[in-house]
């Protein structure tokens, strides 16, 4: 079934790229902005800054008092939030159609005039809140810091993806008001931002409203460096071992992958599916069903734009299982996949699951808006929402074999092992 979600686009004189995608099935509009700044833009000693900044965007701006952004939109039936990731920061709300202009006005006020309202008190308070977020999501969770180890093991020191979005406590402590001002001036500008309206709105009306509220913002984003060239796979295995009090041993086996928006990444994703991304995957059949040496095996691929993406397999070891044997088994299955390629059933299953996941995401107005912004900001092509599945369906067994041989070689793996040690917590790198 070919997809035909409407995609109307226009660029304002100040460089703000806008997409309007009408859908009148629900009397709501989603406003979704992506700003071209994420943790990949952060410098050493300033990690966690993009995310801390995202919090400050809710603390008031020229015409809006602290907390009012949430309050005003929720009282009109808005559901809203913001998130920070390696490649970008996004801000979004879904509001009843009659509150669309209020949402645009509030967004324009903070995206244009945040600094008027920024205070040391707000910065100190949100720094504390972000530190609690870090404790809650990373430090106080079993395996909570595993992915931080994965990023550091897979990507070289100084690479944009070497450090996590949440940053470090020391860097958060060091953030000053001057830093925040400089950060805003450097990255928050209409020519480094895209805006999507998805929902109960006609294209011309949408463009007129965005022009009304955002047209007055000044273009001033700094010249961007081009994205980094493709990072080649690791040439020798990397291993990080953590001994902590965890419920069971867990292996994270990670790989560098080709950048987002390429056929090669789609093929590598299918290869990871064959390995552990499906309940009929090889590692699930072998470790979980037959040997019962693991209670779970999963695979994930995250597309990034700055020269490399990330793929990883997570294996939860059964209580008496030997993690070295699990790792050796994974290497065997990688080699077999590279030799023999995927079966017809694996290829079909991977494509069918990708299709359902994509259609499910697009079924929600919020997620559709987010995908439109993603492809507009990072690839200048919002129509990917309609064409992505064609690319997925075009994957062949040969492409999967090529991707496996190039990107998923056993020697290109980085392993982060969390091993149960009730006695203490020390790192052996």
């Amino acid at each position, binding site marked *: 079934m070919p997809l035909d979600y409407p995609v109307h686009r226009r660029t304002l004189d100040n460089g703000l790229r806008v997409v309007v995608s009408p859908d009148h099935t629900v009397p709501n509009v989603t406003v979704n902005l992506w700003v071209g700044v994420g943790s990949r833009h952060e410098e050493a000693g300033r990690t966690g800054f993009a995310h801390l900044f995202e919090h400050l965007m809710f603390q008031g701006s020229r015409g809006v008092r602290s907390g009012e952004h949430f309050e005003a939109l929720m009282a009109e039936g808005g559901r809203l939030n913001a998130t920070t990731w390696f490649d970008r920061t996004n801000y979004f709300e879904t509001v009843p159609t009659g509150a669309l202009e209020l949402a645009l006005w509030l967004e324009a006020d903070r995206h244009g005039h945040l600094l008027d309202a920024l205070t040391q008190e707000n910065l100190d308070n949100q720094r504390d809140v972000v530190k609690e977020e870090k404790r809650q999501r990373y430090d*106080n969770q079993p395996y909570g810091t595993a992915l931080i180890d994965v990023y550091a093991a897979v990507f070289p020191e100084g690479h944009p993806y070497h450090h996590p979005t949440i940053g470090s406590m020391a860097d958060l402590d060091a953030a000053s008001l001057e830093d925040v001002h400089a950060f805003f001036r450097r990255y928050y500008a209409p020519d480094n931002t895209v805006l999507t309206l998805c929902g109960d709105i006609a294209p011309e009306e949408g463009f007129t409203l965005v022009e009304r509220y955002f047209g007055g913002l000044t273009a001033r984003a700094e010249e961007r460096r081009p994205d980094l060239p493709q990072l080649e796979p690791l040439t020798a295995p990397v291993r990080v071992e953590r001994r902590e009090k965890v419920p069971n041993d867990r292996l994270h086996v990670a790989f560098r992958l080709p950048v987002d928006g390429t056929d090669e990444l789609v093929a590598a994703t299918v290869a990871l599916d064959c390995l552990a991304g499906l309940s009929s995957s090889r590692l699930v059949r072998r470790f979980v*069903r037959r040997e019962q040496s693991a209670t779970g095996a999963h695979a994930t691929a995250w597309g990034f734009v700055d020269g490399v993406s990330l793929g990883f397999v997570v294996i939860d070891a059964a209580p008496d299982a030997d993690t070295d044997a699990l790792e050796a088994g994974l290497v065997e299955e990688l080699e077999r996949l590279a030799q023999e390629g995927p079966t017809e059933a694996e290829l079909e299953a991977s494509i069918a699951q990708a299709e359902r996941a994509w*259609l499910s995401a697009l079924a929600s107005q919020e997620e559709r808006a987010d995908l439109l912004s993603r492809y507009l900001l990072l690839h200048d092509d919002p129509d990917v929402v309609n064409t992505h599945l064609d690319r997925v369906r075009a994957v062949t067994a040969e492409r999967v074999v090529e991707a496996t041989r190039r990107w998923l070689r056993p020697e290109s793996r980085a392993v982060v092992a969390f091993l149960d040690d009730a006695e203490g917590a020390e790192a052996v790198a």
Partner: protein
Amino acid sequence: MSARPAVRPPAPWAFPVPEEHRLPNGVRLLVHDLPGQYVLSMRVVVPSSLATEDPELEGISSMTARLLDEGTAEHSPEEFAELMERHGMALGAGVSDGGLLVDLDVPQAHLPTAARLVTEALATPVFPEPEVRRILRSRLAEIEQERASAAHRAAREVARTMWDPADRASRPAAGSAETIGRITREAVAEHHALRVGPRGATVVLAGDLSGIDPLSVLDATLGQWEAPRQVPAPPPLAPVPAADRARVVVVDRPGSVQTEIAVACPGPDRSTPFGWAPHPVASFVVGGSPNARVDAVLREEKGYTYGIRSAFRPRVAGGSFVTSGSVRSEVTGEAVGLLLGILDDARDGFTAAELRSGVDFVSKTAPGRYATADAVADETAALALEGLPLDFTTRNLAAVAGLALEDLDAAYRRAATGEWTVVLVGDAESVLPAVEGRLPGPVSTVAL
């Protein structure tokens, strides 16, 4: 900069009303045709009560649900998994206090195959011995994962403290290590024969149904489902609160950098004779947003937490009102004191502005909250299991819009009597001295 724009009132909206049918075997079928929703959502609910589980074998309902798609008379477990995935299906099954819930998402074109496989899973699972052992083992691993997670551990201790020890609700729905260890293949097969069948069952199908004849697809599949030995489920009963529930339990989790806080009391289900409408409004005002009473102090003023949330959690019968979140260890004593103060002070009444904001949020977000096939199917399946009429959602929204301050105050006071069950999961060595003398009720400590 232009002036702040005015807001136009939202258009009237109603929760979609499904078409209602009966399948040949008596199963109730509720169909929502939702144009543009290309992934169909199917739900099958079968009422049953966890209270009827053999106390020695608690968790058997959950384990049976998890084993439904692990081998059928027609397909081995691996064949079944592969068939599902080749047809783009995502299938899940679990139990709540009201019964079994099977959920399926599948692209439109694969509905006939999906309906056939769901029927197989419900009607002819064979529970192969190795799969039973594997699923039981993974539940044991899951129990350890839940123990290690502060939030899960807190939820378990709340149930154990708030409900009477004789009540099934005081123990984990999916069973403990002891009871899971006693479950056998034969017990699972027997449980399936007696508890999983078309009697009392409802099927919900939601999504874009253009070009599909759902009735003939479902007549030929779930309409043929039979379970001659199935016994009817007893009517659901609200859990009995523990007589000594108003106390503080510290769960010792050495080395924790945060304390997970949960404050709870019993609450109503959605068919409460007082009306459900004020409850989501009250919980929103108390702890439903960064500007709500709780986070206005603990997050935005003090910076002690990433966020603490309050919610009424209705069960099929009875329910609870729970406020939970985490704070850094050093401020545990002060944070819990402030939190209990806020929850108690709300008994003095809400303001007109709070009522307005809560009513507006709950009623105006409804069209968006029920905009996907998935969300519509979930709500209709919940109505079916809870025995609520199909226009409940719409009528409740009208009741929300008409709430007066007295309704809100009365609803909160009925639930929040001040008899709080307080659970703190954290490093007992530092938590205990910090809360000593600061909180009402006796304080005890339990191991992780």
